């Protein structure tokens, strides 16, 4: 009897439509949907069932399309998010509205998976409780939101979005939210047409190895469909890049020696079929493994191999701040405590791996890729390609999470080189493992800290020394080294201070920017030692912080004096009711509980300077009015999920005096939109927001001048006209009678804002930032002392944002930041060669993030638009130390390293009891 061999063609229903395709044997359903059937709403985050972004319904059952063999769809019905939204599924339609009303989609890459999972749940159980929602959505990871707003949306908890036109201060829906819900937002892998040439990279399997590339011609001959090979020899400009020009040290392709596991040495470009069967291990390259240094201690040891010429002893650079006399103050202090704390690599783990598409258009290179910094990308490509900026166009795609890592170029050079060499369009998408191996991480830290205090609780002396593992290349390591000494004091008044940070090279992946640039690590050291100090002094941890809190008119450790806007006391005071209630509740719980569960409540604070440290940091925002009466905002501040598209528009609309809903947004395409700087350093709402305000004001002045209207006049955009109501008088401009410029505008304004700073001297004294934002958080945890497990049960977070332009988005930042801080505190540690996927590298799931109460504090800042301060990084700085302090409060154990895994905490508890 013959076996049944399936017809190679399969037929199934896709979103109600009968489709027939011929997949290759064992093709994933996700690939069939995306590449053969154009269902790019199905997002790929891991290809291993770990992230759930690709969730689809098959005969109504929720499955990861990446784990289902396409042949198994034969005869079945497949529903994707786009189909659910376009059809008449009532649950999907309701979720579409509720997700937007709650701000439950940030970057949007996980949203299709979340919505599909929620539809499956609601069909089976129309009125679920929170536990049921968590269980149903547990298979989808989100790195932006902290999940709480997703839970609220699925449960249909009340949301109160403001009207769509709302300006500064209104909780309006995200302007780009609809596309994220429908799955129609195009991320890095969603641009290229099916069949486009693909690029695959050959990477070093060793942390340090010399290599020689063999006979590539023979390889090309033997591998049909591989069009070309790229190596360092194909780089027409300099084979070197780096976000800080003085430290640019990273090659596009390594030459002779690879310095970290995962470093690219060559690439192949070929048809999708050829790339599918391309095995990097068969590429002609011979490796000679060399001794590697994989941690700071080894890198600093005498005789350690040196990674870069001119960086003796593997020390890349250092940062230093001092004021007063720390040693003398420590000597006279009544009490001195000291600690050594450490942390490992932390992976950004955005759900969208780096991806993009490039093509040649009229002799110019056009790169479509996910990025946080399009103009910096272009600057890097000018050097690598040896081309003029005018011949390079960067068109950012949607960004499925960034958190700092997408500030650096990743796929861009390979795309450009591939399209230049082949003359054809090319695409690349990093696998999850490649993304984790090769892109930047949070710096591991090793921090020694001594702090003294007088009996009245005032700090007397602070001495901080931190070494930061910057990996094989500089990336943003110098920024970390500079920022840490400026911030290591926390938002406190410390007159006698010394802080030194160093960046040390190792044969590890480059450590770069990750939400906070080293400050979350230094805050762990400082805020946990503050608790130890308060304990020795017999002071309440909140009172101790208030005694030392920085106030208006007092110098920071850099000697900068803010006459206004210092909001840390307001944040700490906002937490007092919660602090007292939770400490009391914990005491009662522990009194009544005989078992192994102990509850603890911890507090920690933080501050963060917004924008570049003592360097120019301008943003330009441009806007025009078309002859048809449309107002177009060229919004170049990359929205990576945080909401810049919405917030910058709200500020601009407020300044111009029109409803936000009347604007058309133009994105950060370098051909048409001026540079609004990078989405980094919590600067966009402050810096680009200011440029937007100035631009709105300038355009308003032009319009009012054109009709001689008074400054109080209201502007009413219309078709082919703009009307003005000025008291009793009305005016209008018949726009179609005006001569439009080359861009089609009859009115145009562009304004730039650069925050005022001054350089730091040799002692780190100066004006590093125009403003700081302030934060304080309470963590409540339950520790299972028998198993070493930690369950956060509540957070209360007070954040001074100066002015909340969109309170709903502010809450989204707070919740998402806390989730990342929680991950860093409890579970995340990237170990090269060992945790290179999302089932060995753990990030919080929907079941790990407890309710978060956000308290928005508004102490206005004189520089920020309408008083705004930055927020994006502040949100995770206090989280890890608050959790560690809560663990100590619960069980008396002070951990010296994160993550506080059950294994580590259990060992510490057992040690403590000995």
């Amino acid at each position, binding site marked *: 009897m013959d076996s049944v061999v399936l017809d190679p063609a399969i037929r199934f229903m896709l979103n109600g439509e009968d489709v027939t395709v011929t997949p290759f044997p064992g093709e994933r359903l996700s690939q069939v949907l995306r590449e053969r059937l154009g269902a790019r709403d199905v997002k790929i985050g891991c290809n291993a069932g770990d992230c759930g972004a690709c969730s689809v319904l098959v005969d109504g059952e929720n499955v990861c399309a990446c*784990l289902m*063999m396409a042949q198994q769809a034969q005869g079945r019905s497949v529903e994707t998010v786009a189909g659910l939204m376009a059809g008449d599924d009532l649950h999907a339609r309701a979720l579409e509205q509720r997700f937007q009303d709650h701000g439950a989609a940030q970057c949007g890459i996980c949203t299709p998976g979340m919505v599909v999972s929620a539809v499956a749940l609601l069909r089976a159980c129309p009125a679920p409780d929170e536990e049921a929602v968590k269980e149903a959505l*547990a*298979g989808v990871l989100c790195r932006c939101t902290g999940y709480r707003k997703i839970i609220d949306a699925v449960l249909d908890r009340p949301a109160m979005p403001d009207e769509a036109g709302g300006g500064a201060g209104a909780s309006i829906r995200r302007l780009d939210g609809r596309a994220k819900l429908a799955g129609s937002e195009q991320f890095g892998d969603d641009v290229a047409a099916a069949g486009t040439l693909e690029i695959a990279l050959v990477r070093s399997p060793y942390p340090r190895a010399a290599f020689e590339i063999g006979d590539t011609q023979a390889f090309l001959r033997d591998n049909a469909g591989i069009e070309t090979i790229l190596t360092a020899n194909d780089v027409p400009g300099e084979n070197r890049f780096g976000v800080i020009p003085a430290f640019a040290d990273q090659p596009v392709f390594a030459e002779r020696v690879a310095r970290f596991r995962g470093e690219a040495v060559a690439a192949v470009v070929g048809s999708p079929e050829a790339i599918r069967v391309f095995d990097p291990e068969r590429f002609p390259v011979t490796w000679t493994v060399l001794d590697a240094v994989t941690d700071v201690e080894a890198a600093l040891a005498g005789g350690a191999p040196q990674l870069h010429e001119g960086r003796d002893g593997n020390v890349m650079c250092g940062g230093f701040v001092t004021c007063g006399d720390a040693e003398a103050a420590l000597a006279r202090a009544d009490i001195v405590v000291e600690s050594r704390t450490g942390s490992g690599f932390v992976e950004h783990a955005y759900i969208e791996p780096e991806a993009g598409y490039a093509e040649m258009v009229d002799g110019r290179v056009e790169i479509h890729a996910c990025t946080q910094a399009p103009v910096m990308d272009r600057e890097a490509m000018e050097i690598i390609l040896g081309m003029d900026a005018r011949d390079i166009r960067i068109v950012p795609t949607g960004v499925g999470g960034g958190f700092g890592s997408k500030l650096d170029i990743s796929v861009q050079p390979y795309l450009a080189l591939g399209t230049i060499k082949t003359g054809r369009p090319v695409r690349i998408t990093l696998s999850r493992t490649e993304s984790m191996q090769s892109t930047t991480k949070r710096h591991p830290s090793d921090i020694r800290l001594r702090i003294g205090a007088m009996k009245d609780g005032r700090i007397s002396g602070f001495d901080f020394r931190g070494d930061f593992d910057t990996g094989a290349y500089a990336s943003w390591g110098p920024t970390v080294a500079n920022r840490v000494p400026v911030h290591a004091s926390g938002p406190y008044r410390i007159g006698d201070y010394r802080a030194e940070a160093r960046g040390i090279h190792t044969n590890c992946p480059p450590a770069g920017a990750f939400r906070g640039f080293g400050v979350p690590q230094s805050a762990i050291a400082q805020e946990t030692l503050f608790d130890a100090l308060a304990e020795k002094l017999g002071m309440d941890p909140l009172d101790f912080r208030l005694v030392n809190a920085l106030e208006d008119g007092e110098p920071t450790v850099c000697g900068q004096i803010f006459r206004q806007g210092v909001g840390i006391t307001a944040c700490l005071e906002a937490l007092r009711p919660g602090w007292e209630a939770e400490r009391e509740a914990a005491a009662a719980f522990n009194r009544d509980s005989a078992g192994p569960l102990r509850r603890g409540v911890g507090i920690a604070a933080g501050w963060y300077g917004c924008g570049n440290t003592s360097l120019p940091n301008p943003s330009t925002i441009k806007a025009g009015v078309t002859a048809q009466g449309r107002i177009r905002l060229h919004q170049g501040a990359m929205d990576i999920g945080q909401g810049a598209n919405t917030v910058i528009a709200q500020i601009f609309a407020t300044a111009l005096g029109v409803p936000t809903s009347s604007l058309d947004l133009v994105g950060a395409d370098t051909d048409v939109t001026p540079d609004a700087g990078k989405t980094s350093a919590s600067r966009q709402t402050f810096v680009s927001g200011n440029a937007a305000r100035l631009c709105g004001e300038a355009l308003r002045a032009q319009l009012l001048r054109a009709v001689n209207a008074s400054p109080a006049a209201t502007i009413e955009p219309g078709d082919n006209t703009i009307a003005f109501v000025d008291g009793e008088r009305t005016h209008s401009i018949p726009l179609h009678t005006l001569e439009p410029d080359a861009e089609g505008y009859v009115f145009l304004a562009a304004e730039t804002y650069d925050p005022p700073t001054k350089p730091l001297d040799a002692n780190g004294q100066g004006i590093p930032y125009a403003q700081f934002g302030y934060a304080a958080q309470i963590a409540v945890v339950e520790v299972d002392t028998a198993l070493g497990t930690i369950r956060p049960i509540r957070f209360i977070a007070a954040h001074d944002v100066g002015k909340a332009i969109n309170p709903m988005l502010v809450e989204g930042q707070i919740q998402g930041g806390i989730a990342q801080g929680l991950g860093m505190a*409890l579970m995340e540690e990237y170990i090269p060669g*060992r945790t290179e996927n999302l089932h060995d590298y753990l990030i919080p*799931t*929907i079941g790990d993030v407890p309710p978060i109460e956000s308290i928005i504090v508004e102490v206005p800042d004189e520089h920020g638009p309408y008083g705004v301060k930055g927020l994006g990084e502040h949100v995770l700085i206090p989280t890890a130390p608050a959790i560690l302090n809560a663990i100590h409060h619960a069980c008396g154990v002070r951990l010296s390293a994160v993550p506080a895994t059950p294994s580590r905490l259990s060992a510490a508890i057992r040690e403590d009891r000995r």
Partner: protein
Amino acid sequence: MPYVAPITVEEALLAMGDGAMRVVAGCTDYFPSRKAGEGEPTLLDLTRVRALRGISETPQGWRIGATSTWTDILRAPLPPAFDALKLAAREVGSVQIQNLGTLAGNLCNASPAADGVPPLLALEAEVEIAARGSTRRIPLSRFITGVRSTDLQPGEIVTALHIPSPPDGTRSAFLKLGSRRYLVISIAMVAVNLTLRDGRIGDARVAVGACSPVATRLPALEAALDGVAVCDLADDTLVTEAHLAPLSPLDDVRGSASFRLHSVAELCRRAIRKAVGQEACHG
């Protein structure tokens, strides 16, 4: 013939030939294990073989078809002795994984941290294996022979699991320890099945996963539990080091060996108490 989807067991066995084919069903382990550029194996997809899926009561107990999914287990009207298996089913990855992943796949993949194995050991499951012209049954404890290795011979496929009728009144519990709430590979896990008569434990079966190359039962602990009064369960010396002698945990990124041993003792105590449940102590 790189992809074959038979509809009967006989066809599947014929197609197997000398066993050069890669047998797949839920594919939840197959796809994540794929490496870039890896050649495509000839695939034998069992998901169309109707006879391999389904859960039924037999005169001797229960039969679980090889390609029954974790969701099938969760939806089946099984007696309380299967509670540990159901709890484990809810911990296998996510709903998405549970909808595709199969029980036999979990066993054949032979991961030391397979969630399904401890509850099935506590149920004393047997594995039904078919080859051309023959079938055999072996205890699950002998089916998995090591890390990623089984007793499956070339040309054989797993067709079902058989669970002998559990003793009347069997209660069952499962506990899993991980570093996060969902979607987590176990640091350690424990399944317990037992009966209670007159306030005393009987028929105790305790199985531990992720603490040895193959999940294993703890016979000394089971023996020690026999006849223990519910009233004495509060005693923390219930589980001793000697009881854990069959375990040989490793140090890995999820936890140290000493942590595993320490925590598994606690998990055993808790799982035993959980299986006993609210039974009042009449001492």
